[in-house]
């Protein structure tokens, strides 16, 4: 396992951590946001925080697609799923997301035909196999996932499949980051850019963060050492007084992104003028809907959806946690009425959600595996 050692070697991790410590000005307080939920997971899983000096605070960002979906959209999905002719398909995580009157799992128990699928192409196969039923795919995800939906719709169109449609909830990563930068609640110093999203969109879309807001960005991979290296790159930039977009994950992320994926997205989707984000409110041009060429596959045109805005339960503080204003454990229901088994908010549902990640790893420091242990 020589490859693994290169990334896990405790000595390298400690050397990088030591370098970060020398770059950090102890008089300053640095707020570094990791945009992506996958990074949040690694940070808690490996106790990255413990390797950093006190002066660096990691703030969790809005990059978990299950977490940012507002309750009204969950309710809309459920309304579609309750049509008797509908087979409603979604990813596993979506089944447990609470709507205002229960989750998809609960309506399934009451008899609705809700099926977990691994891929939108599985949903399309189910449509092929059930020509007398209406098959709906609940599409969620950032630019990482949107191309998969786009290619699936291309295929549906090519085969002329009439009983398939997509309830589109794809969102884009840049607008919420801009909204956070504009928000007076939060003063951020630097950003760890998402890895998987960037394989599709590349690094260029983050240039506004350094050009317009003067903050450095480092796109990072998901290994603990990737994250430490990206934090080191950010601290180096801050120490030098530079602000640029750097790519720590260049072994996977091409600067220009994936052109085939971008092309499929621009063919199949168009931007919505507005979309509601949990905790962040309405953000302009932050989500995708099907383009006119694919309107025949749009579930929102095929079925009437309530489209009502639903406020989160009073006790929930997902919004504050999503904005990085509160830490997960500061939410008043964390670990009491909201747990991974019985989630009240979305951040407890998926393993990338900050609350679930902290619940599972962060608070149980005994079980936490230090970087490089045993290798």
């Amino acid at each position, binding site marked *: 396992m020589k*490859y693994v050692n290169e990334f896990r070697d405790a000595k390298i991790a400690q050397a990088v951590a030591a370098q970060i410590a020398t770059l950090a000005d102890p008089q300053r307080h640095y707020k570094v946001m990791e945009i992506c939920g996958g990074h949040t997971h690694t940070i808690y899983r490996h106790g990255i925080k413990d390797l950093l000096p006190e002066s660096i605070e990691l703030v969790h960002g809005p990059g978990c697609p299950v977490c940012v979906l507002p309750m009204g959209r969950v309710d809309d999905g459920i309304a579609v799923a309750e049509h008797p002719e509908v087979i409603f398909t979604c990813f596993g995580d979506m089944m447990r997301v609470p709507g205002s009157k229960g989750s998809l799992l609960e309506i399934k128990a009451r008899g609705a035909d809700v099926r977990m699928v*691994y891929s939108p192409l599985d949903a399309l196969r189910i449509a092929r196999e059930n020509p007398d039923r209406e098959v709906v795919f609940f599409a969620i995800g950032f630019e*990482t*996932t949107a191309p998969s939906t786009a290619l699936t719709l291309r295929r549906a169109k090519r085969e002329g499949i009439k009983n398939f449609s997509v309830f589109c909830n794809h969102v884009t990563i840049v607008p919420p980051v801009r909204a956070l930068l504009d928000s007076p609640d939060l003063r951020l110093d630097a950003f760890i850019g998402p890895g998987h999203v960037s394989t*599709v969109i590349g690094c260029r879309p983050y240039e506004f963060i350094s050009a317009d807001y003067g903050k450095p960005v480092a796109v990072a991979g998901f290994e603990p050492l990737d994250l430490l290296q990206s934090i080191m790159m950010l601290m180096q930039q801050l120490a030098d007084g530079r602000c640029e977009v750097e790519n720590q994950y260049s072994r996977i992320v091409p600067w220009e992104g994936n052109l085939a994926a971008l092309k499929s997205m621009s063919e199949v989707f168009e931007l919505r003028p507005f979309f509601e984000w949990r905790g962040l409110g309405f953000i302009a041009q932050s989500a995708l809907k099907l383009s006119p060429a694919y309107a025949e596959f749009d579930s929102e045109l095929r079925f009437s959806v309530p489209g009502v805005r639903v406020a989160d339960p009073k006790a929930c503080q997902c919004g504050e946690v999503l904005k990085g204003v509160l830490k997960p454990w500061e939410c008043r229901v964390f670990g009491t009425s909201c747990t991974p088994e019985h989630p009240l908010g979305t951040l407890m549902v998926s393993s990338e959600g900050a609350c679930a990640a902290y619940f599972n790893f962060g608070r149980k420091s005994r079980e936490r595996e230090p970087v490089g242990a045993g290798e």
Partner: protein
Amino acid sequence: MCLAIPGRIEEILDEDLQLAKANVSGVRRTINIGLVHDEDEKIEVGDWVLIHVGFAMSKIDEAEAVTQLKALEEIGEAYEQELRELSVSRIE
């Protein structure tokens, strides 16, 4: 669903539909390679790719695949769930 998991291409099934058979930790499933398979860069049998919701997202080298697999095995439950979900996939 946010995971991207490494798989090794075992067979190109359909050039037109851009389908290939991939082996992910011993689970063999059909995936779509349309996002990484084009004139400039063809996917071949034996290549490693990162797979997300049934689609190859990027071609990776073996060292990267081994590293990522090790990391995924360590995360345990989330990866096992992903493999369970993959195992019911029947992409055609």
